[in-house]
């Protein structure tokens, strides 16, 4: 589904990604861990086409298509979704108009007619309940006056509405209490199917307990330095990243 090869990227002239290689198959959940500043968020922003990041080298194929050649909105239409670490407030734009514009744009891209209003509202209601988002919030402007937790829940709600093929959850667990985390994770599992893959960026094992990743990667200094199974997350939780650093240092010395 996703094949990242030797991806290098910089922001404001500073090189952050220094050759990332990553391969994600259909239906797989990959966790991305690593100390602050290791490039996890940069990788997700580069994948979804944030114009602040400049790709200097490398390729990304998404379902066989050249992802880096596409505009951000077309990447979304192709099925790429990112749950933002800090979702943006858009005063005056209602959630209904926002999602409708998003869904109609995707349908247009796919050669489908605009969505029927009644069907759309019905779906909004169903998906809203699935992630436990209050009806009053869905009527408000996008993220305006939402608490941190509500914003994260709103991200998952949007994911449910847009039904992506690859979802990137960038620290979706931060700012969520234990109950909210469980609801979001349950919502995620309901949406999951054999085709949908995910990249989960997190610092906490709790999120991974709920989401049960197939593969865990550790990023350091702009590269993926270690890849393993779920037990890798357990060891990081228990021992931190120092041992990974030591391993990487030792192999570099050799």
């Amino acid at each position, binding site marked *: 589904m996703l094949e990242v090869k030797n991806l290098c990227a910089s922001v404001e002239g500073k090189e952050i990604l220094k050759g990332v290689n990553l391969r994600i198959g259909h239906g797989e959940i990959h966790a991305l861990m690593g100390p602050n500043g290791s490039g996890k968020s940069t990788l997700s922003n580069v994948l*979804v*086409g*944030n*114009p*602040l990041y400049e790709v200097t080298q490398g390729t990304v194929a998404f379902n066989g298509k050249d992802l880096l050649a596409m*505009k*951000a*909105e077309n*990447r*979304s*239409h192709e099925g790429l*979704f*990112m749950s*933002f670490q800090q*979702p*943006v*407030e*858009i*005063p*005056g*734009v209602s959630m209904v*108009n*926002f*999602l409708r*514009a*998003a*869904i109609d*744009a*995707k349908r247009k*891209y796919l050669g489908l007619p605009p969505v029927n209003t009644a069907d759309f509202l019905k779906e909004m209601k169903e998906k809203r309940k699935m992630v436990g988002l209050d009806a009053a919030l869905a009527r408000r*402007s996008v993220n305006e006056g939402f608490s941190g937790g509500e914003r994260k829940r709103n991200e998952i709600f*949007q994911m449910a509405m*847009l039904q992506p093929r690859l979802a990137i959850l960038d620290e979706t667990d931060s700012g969520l209490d234990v109950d909210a985390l469980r609801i979001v994770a349950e919502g995620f599992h309901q949406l999951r199917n054999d085709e949908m893959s995910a990249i989960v960026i997190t610092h906490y094992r709790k999120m991974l307990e709920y989401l049960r990743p197939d593969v865990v990667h550790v990023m350091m200094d702009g590269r993926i330095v270690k890849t393993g199974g779920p037990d890798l997350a357990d060891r990081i939780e228990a021992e931190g990243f120092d041992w990974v650093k030591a391993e990487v240092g030792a192999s570099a010395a050799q």
Partner: protein
Amino acid sequence: MDSLAQYLRLFDQNRPLLLDGPQAVAAPLRLRAYEALQTHGLPTRKEEKYRYTDVQSCLALDYGLNLHRRPSGMEAHDVSRGRVAGVNGPLVLMANDEVLSVADVRCPMPAGVEVNSLGVVAAQSPRWLADHLAQLAVVEQDSMVALNTLLAQEGLVVRAHAGCCPGQPIQVVCQGASQMDLMTLRRLLVVVEEDAELSLLMVYRDAGEYRRLVSQVAEVYLEKNARLHLWLVEQGQAATQLFDHVVVRQAARSRLDCGCFSLQGGTTRRTLEVCQLGQEAVTQVYGGVIGLGREHVDNHLLIRHEAPNCQSDVLFKYVLDDESVGAFAGKVLVQRGAQKIQSQETNANLCVSPTARMFTQPMLEIYADDVKCNHGSTVGRLDERALFYMAQRGIPEPEARMLLQEAFLGEAVARVAHEPLRERLSYWVEERFRYKMGHCNGCDICDTERLLKEKKE
């Protein structure tokens, strides 16, 4: 000086027409205006008040004037197409300065409200008219008022008698119409008597190939405990120049709610002066401006608090694209003794293209010591983070920009208390931005242009 000399000469050549007969009531005012113009000349950009709008170059075009009052050729049903759909209520139709019809049998004027052309009122109630006309808009204080007073022959008078409270708004459609470049000078006089309530919607429309300059001077009297909703909506064209001068006098416990929306036009200069003479008066003024192409919109406001315990709230929002220019100068003046005033003035602007320009000047001048006044202005660009967030969700940039701009102006539109008008304004704002995107869904603006074109053919 050339254009001024030309207008003074025109007056001299038509003295009998402008001073005698039905125009006699205006004669002393015209002579004062003549003198004022001779003394002060036309405004220049050196004058603080007209710093952002070049009046001289607006007047430099060789406009014709319809002093001999030839009919415009527009009929009431043509103008009625320009009415705001969904807003029910009595309809007044004007072509240039000519009143074509005042309400009809289907929707008559409600009891207690009188609407007539200036000519009719001059003939029927000359003394009442003399007591009100040119009392608020003083010729010596503004040369554009003086020019209007010198040459304006017709207009509209709206009078809400004491205690009347018609439910539906009165809608006045002013359509520009001519087969030549034309200057229209007209008056508007609105008197809302004690305890009366009135809603008045003025729609300025212009389309077609000719250039038109409209100078309108409106004087609005709100007597004790009177309430007025006044909405000014402009849908002109690139060659339209609108000089709208509105002066309001508020007595005790009166309430003004005034919305100004410049949706489309060429050059617009609006002067709005509100004077609160009585205690506990409340003034709410809000406006939305869309600047596309080379449009120029200049709103100049003065709120004078002369009495204690009053309130004022001003909100103007501009979205400027392409090479458009916006200007906002708003002064809140609190006079000595006008204690316990609460005033808020906000001007927020978006310049969405690198070549759009905004000049903003919020001002407070306070001579009382127990007041609560705030003012502020911002000029910014579209939020790049929001644009990216929307792009990530699949919303293409033009659509995202439109949604953000619409949302920005939405705050001003939301203040319109009359729901059908508010909905129509939201629709127009969206259509205007869609028009920019090149795929308008057959909006009223384009419809009017098409109809006029068809009619001409």
